[in-house]
């Protein structure tokens, strides 16, 4: 054992390097591979073309989520192209012996919700998926990141990918967060400070009391959006909160294996004295509920602030102007009070039970604003069941909302859940790119609390004015 202090990232990465290529990438063993219907078909086609098999079918898990409908899931999928992708996933997984939680399966849901929910995601793993929000699983102290379809084919055929090791960044947030400030606000705040490209080339570790005190759901929200500042991924050292979350889940270790696993997981933390390539420190007390005003997730601001001017931020003037023009906003005006048309709560960012509890805490005893269309989409059937068991469903119905069925839904609008052109949506998802939620749609990213406040008032509202 070297006495050199080692980071969490290095500990996990180094344990998975099969071979290092001089002036080239590392060959990295992947412990768990998630696939879905959109980014896997061409990879399976590649296997057939090259006459390759799947090396470890029991290390890959499939779920259908990206283009599934969120109503009437018991009926055949109407869109023939979506139906074709779902059928391809079913056939491909069946022919290679891969676990598949398709539409109608009680374990179906968004890939980054069902992985942790079923104990597939465990500390110290390497996890990949053809989806950039795979960074979510970093909440468990995993190295988890999104890959392209060529890499999906690599993992299927060899359980490895080839990537150069990223640089290391640590982001420390300490201090007390005030009322109404959620994990989503923390990560939107960080991205607004670093910009949408500020962590490109880095793997981020989040540290400090704000993350230590955060639930696993909250940590997943934070790690989920690491990619939105360009980071390869983000991770948080596992602790008792992590172990308590995992314990008893279906695929979690049991008995002696559990004790052995926990003993190992406790070693997964950054040693004293590690020097990071870049390190940032923020004070949790500086963070207020956040909202985005532009067309990338770095264009976020405290909800009570004014939209910045091009001179205030580090971006090209033309791109900034193009962004505000798309949104229909002008520099130096407030976001508070702006009329909104849609509210979307769900996605791999904020589609877990804690998010619906937060939403319900605001809408309870209030009514949905008449002109607002709200799509409330649980991240999985398990979350949906919890919503019903905990009485959240009754609160939603009482307030004039409906609950839809699980899926990625309006986060990327591959299915019918599209925000119409020109309309404003307060969305708990992760991207406010032009057209992300439908051609011409205008997205305001925010927390479940801000989404709830907008849903009941019909305008951008500071949730702190509505909560006790």
């Amino acid at each position, binding site marked *: 054992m070297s006495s050199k202090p080692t980071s969490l990232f290095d500990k996990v990465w180094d344990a998975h390097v099969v071979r290092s290529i001089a002036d080239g990438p590392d060959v990295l063993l992947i412990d768990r591979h998630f696939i879905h219907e959109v980014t896997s078909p061409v990879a399976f086609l590649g296997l057939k073309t090259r006459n390759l098999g799947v090396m470890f079918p029991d290390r890959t898990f499939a779920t259908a989520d990206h283009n599934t409908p969120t109503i009437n899931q018991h009926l055949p999928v109407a869109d023939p192209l979506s139906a074709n992708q779902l059928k391809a996933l079913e056939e491909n997984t069946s022919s290679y012996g891969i676990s598949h939680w398709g539409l109608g399966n009680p374990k179906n849901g968004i890939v980054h919700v069902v992985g942790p929910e079923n104990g597939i995601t465990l500390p110290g793993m390497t996890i990949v998926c053809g989806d950039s929000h795979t960074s979510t699983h970093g909440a468990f102290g995993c190295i988890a990141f999104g890959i392209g379809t060529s890499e999906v084919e690599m993992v299927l055929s060899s359980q490895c990918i080839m990537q150069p090791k990223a640089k290391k960044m640590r982001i420390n947030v300490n201090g007390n967060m005030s009322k109404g400030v959620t994990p989503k606000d923390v990560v939107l705040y960080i991205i607004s400070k670093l910009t949408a490209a500020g962590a490109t*080339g880095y793997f981020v570790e989040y540290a400090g009391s704000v993350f230590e005190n955060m639930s696993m759901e909250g940590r997943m929200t934070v790690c989920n959006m690491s990619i939105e500042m*360009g980071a390869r991924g983000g991770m948080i050292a596992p602790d008792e909160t992590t172990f308590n979350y995992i314990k008893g889940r279906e695929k979690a270790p049991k008995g002696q294996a559990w004790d052995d696993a926990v003993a190992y997981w406790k070693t997964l933390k950054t040693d004293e004295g590690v020097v990071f390539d870049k390190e940032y420190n923020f004070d949790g007390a500086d963070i207020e509920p956040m909202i985005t005003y532009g067309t990338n997730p770095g264009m976020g601001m405290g909800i009570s602030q004014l939209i910045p001017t091009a001179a205030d931020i580090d971006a090209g003037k033309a791109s900034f102007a193009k962004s505000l023009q798309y949104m229909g906003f002008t520099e130096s005006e407030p976001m508070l009070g702006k009329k909104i048309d849609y509210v979307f709560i769900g996605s791999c960012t904020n589609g877990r039970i804690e998010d619906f509890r937060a939403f319900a805490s605001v809408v309870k005893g209030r009514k949905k604003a008449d002109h607002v269309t709200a799509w409330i989409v649980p991240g999985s059937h398990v979350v949906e069941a919890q919503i019903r068991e905990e009485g959240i469903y009754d609160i939603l119905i009482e307030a004039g909302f409906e609950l839809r069925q699980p899926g990625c839904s309006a986060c990327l609008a591959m299915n019918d859940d599209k925000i119409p052109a020109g309309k404003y949506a307060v969305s708990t998802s992760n991207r406010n790119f032009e057209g992300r939620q439908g051609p011409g749609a205008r997205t305001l990213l925010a927390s479940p609390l801000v989404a709830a406040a907008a849903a009941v008032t019909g305008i951008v509202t500071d949730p702190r004015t509505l909560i006790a």
Partner: protein
Amino acid sequence: MAYDKFTVLTSSAVPLPIENVDTDQIIPARFLKATKREGFGDNLFRDWRYNGDDTPKQDFVLNNAIYSGKILVGGKNFGSGSSREHAAWAIYDYGFRCVVSSFFADIFKNNSLNIGILPVQVSEDFLDRIFKAIEADPQTQLEVDLSKQTITILSTGDSESFDINSYKKHNLMNGFDDIDYLQAMKEEISTFAQNSRY
């Protein structure tokens, strides 16, 4: 999927001087429903390129006949967002073999290299000089020499070198890919995997 070997590319270039061009712009999600790698070039930059009624937007650069070539020159932080390799496929299928920017998003860069597109990262100053040269003369020829790792504006001789690791360079110059490499070390992987914790 096999791709054309990359050695020296001399071509005019298409300028797209916008920062943070994300993969949802390169190929919107609603065009990701194929189960084969076909036809993605038709939907490259779909919503910037076409109106809602599928008529071309005349002010978008791909609809301007004076710009053409196998090199796409984009603003800073090109390819951010989703991991969809479809973005790289769309660029390749449209006919580009090289994308130049002052900064690339990681996953897009990996995806490009994996399918035979060379991402060339240049300084912001040099990027600016390329845009100016194309503005002055849309037929400006750029020469990208992978072997020498240089990009040159031929009319002025203005040149800059770029980084690429020797493994990926070797792959691109020979049309190899990572899957070939990994298949050749299956036994080593198998032994490693049997001893792994998970």
